[in-house]
């Protein structure tokens, strides 16, 4: 009988110690379909979590299952899981095409099937032109893309990507992000770790913030942001009369600050209660006292949440 957890990635009380050194501790997570980002500073346990998920390392305590399977049963497990690791290394002397083709033959595919899937995955990462060159002659970005192609070549249901944007130029980065987003929408579980927070933020359905081996926060990014009460929410409003708006805002007890923009065509408000702020704004608009051009939250992205919870600038571009 199928369990509900057979469609999820489940970590149950997972700890991993490297001798006396903590990798991750008491991790309890469930990850559903869609794009999930693992965010945290270096050494926070992102790669450890991914390696535990895929059986490259084993938990000291607890267990993790991916769609009801564990890496102890590799024949079933690795047909549904693809992992693009951070290790930028390859067996010597291979071309990009051979690298993918050889790995597909280990799935028991015959030569024709393996060739079809090799071409398909190479096309998906735009590497057909360079497919017959030696991997040793590839740029870092090309190596990254060919590893990505290899990890998706067997049509996994779960795709684990450790820093997949490293070394990619802006064009390739945008293409990769679009690919991850599309795979997430197709119903795959896509688990990504990345330092490029503002890009990951755009496609993530869920984020998991890690620090020093512990899960600091998890969930949809806006929900996580709402939970960070000690940092008032920042909301940017572009309007015809920011002075009037500021005056009305200061009459509210949940408003901490309102800063008028230098061009006097908008303001940045900080509020402890975003719902009441939006209700007030709605009321002001209905009263017809000012015209609103744009309203946007200024700090409910991964970068801000990361900064508030982990305490340093996490984003790099």
């Amino acid at each position, binding site marked *: 009988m199928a369990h509900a957890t057979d469609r999820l990635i489940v970590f149950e009380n997972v700890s991993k110690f490297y001798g006396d050194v903590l990798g991750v501790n008491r991790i309890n997570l469930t990850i559903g379909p869609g794009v999930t980002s693992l965010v945290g500073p270096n050494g926070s346990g992102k790669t450890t979590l991914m390696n535990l998920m895929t059986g*490259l390392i084993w938990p000291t305590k607890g267990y993790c299952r991916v769609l009801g399977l564990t890496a102890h049963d590799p024949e*079933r497990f690795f047909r549904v899981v693809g992992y693009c690791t951070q290790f930028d290394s390859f067996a*010597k002397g291979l071309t990009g095409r051979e690298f993918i083709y050889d790995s597909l033959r*280990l799935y028991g595919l015959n030569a024709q*099937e393996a060739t079809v899937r090799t071409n398909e995955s190479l096309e998906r990462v735009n590497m057909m032109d360079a497919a017959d060159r030696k991997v040793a002659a590839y740029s870092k970005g090309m190596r990254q893309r060919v590893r990505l192609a290899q990890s998706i070549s*067997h049509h996994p249901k779960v795709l684990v990507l450790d820093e997949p944007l490293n070394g990619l130029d802006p064009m390739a980065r945008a293409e990769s992000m679009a690919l991850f987003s599309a795979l997430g929408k*197709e119903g795959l579980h896509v688990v990504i770790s990345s330092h490029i927070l503002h890009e990951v933020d755009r496609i993530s359905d869920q984020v998991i913030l890690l620090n020093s081996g512990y899960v600091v926060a998890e969930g949809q990014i806006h929900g996580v942001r709402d939970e960070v009460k000690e940092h008032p929410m920042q909301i940017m409003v572009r309007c015809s009369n920011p002075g009037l708006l500021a005056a009305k805002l200061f009459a509210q007890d949940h408003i901490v600050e309102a800063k008028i923009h230098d061009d006097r065509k908008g303001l940045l408000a900080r509020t402890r209660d975003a719902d009441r702020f939006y209700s007030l704004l709605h009321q002001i608009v209905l009263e017809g006292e000012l015209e609103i051009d744009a309203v946007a939250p200024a700090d409910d992205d991964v970068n801000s949440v990361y900064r508030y919870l982990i305490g340093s600038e996490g984003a790099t571009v």
Partner: protein
Amino acid sequence: MSAEGLAIPLQEKAAGYSWSLWQAQLLTILRLELKRNFFRLRGFWVYLLAFGPTIIIAAHALTSRGRCNLEQDTTILAGIFQVFYLRLGIFFGCMGIFTRLFRGEVIEKSLHYYFLAPVRREILVLGKFLAGVTAAILFFGAGVALSFIFMYGHIGQAGRQFVFNGPGLGHLGYYLLATALACIGYGALFLLMGIVFRNPIIPAVVILGWESIDNVLPALLKKFSIIFYLEPLCPVEVPVEGIGALFTVVADPVPVYIAIPGLLCISGLLLYYAARKIRSMEISYGTD
């Protein structure tokens, strides 16, 4: 990511995994390992170990035409086989080939590709072992066979008589059998060393020492060396002379019908232990 046009979806293949899948995976691993690791320039020193004596014997054949003694050359060939091939050439060749199979991939940070494939780790051990054995037997078998051909080829009529109408071909068969068993035995041992030890050189030196003092070990301890099971297969006895003869402990030779299965059993046990170890192995390149 559509699987249209493909005969059998991968997940369905998984449901029916079986001997045929394992066989296909074994053949793939064998092919990949032979392509990636063997018959390449970086294995030059293994070729040297395998064919070094052949070159020397060929030079001897060219320079000593008409001045040969069949009995003496037979003893020289037996000495080269027992002292060089069995104790040094095959030992070091297998050390280089088999410790590299796993430890080399850890150093090159490429082992995780196998660990992330839908292949049982036991099949991976067996596939890599078979690739190593294939290469080692090819190199050293060819080296021994060519040495034999050069050694008896230049003697003339007496040589041909010895090979085709005497015990010559039988000797060659035993030399090749001993070579194959040595590759299997040392191969299994060094494959395990490559999994268990981060630096297999030190245990390899200890094993070399142990195998080298086999002659002077008490009869009971002799049984724990690979060379003990190989020596009875050698068709010509090489006399131990000088100070070595003083310390040599004479033990009853193992009958061939025990030596061969005995060595294969030991190799099987070593591989079984290697397979057990590999199941719990983790990828931690940073610490290796």
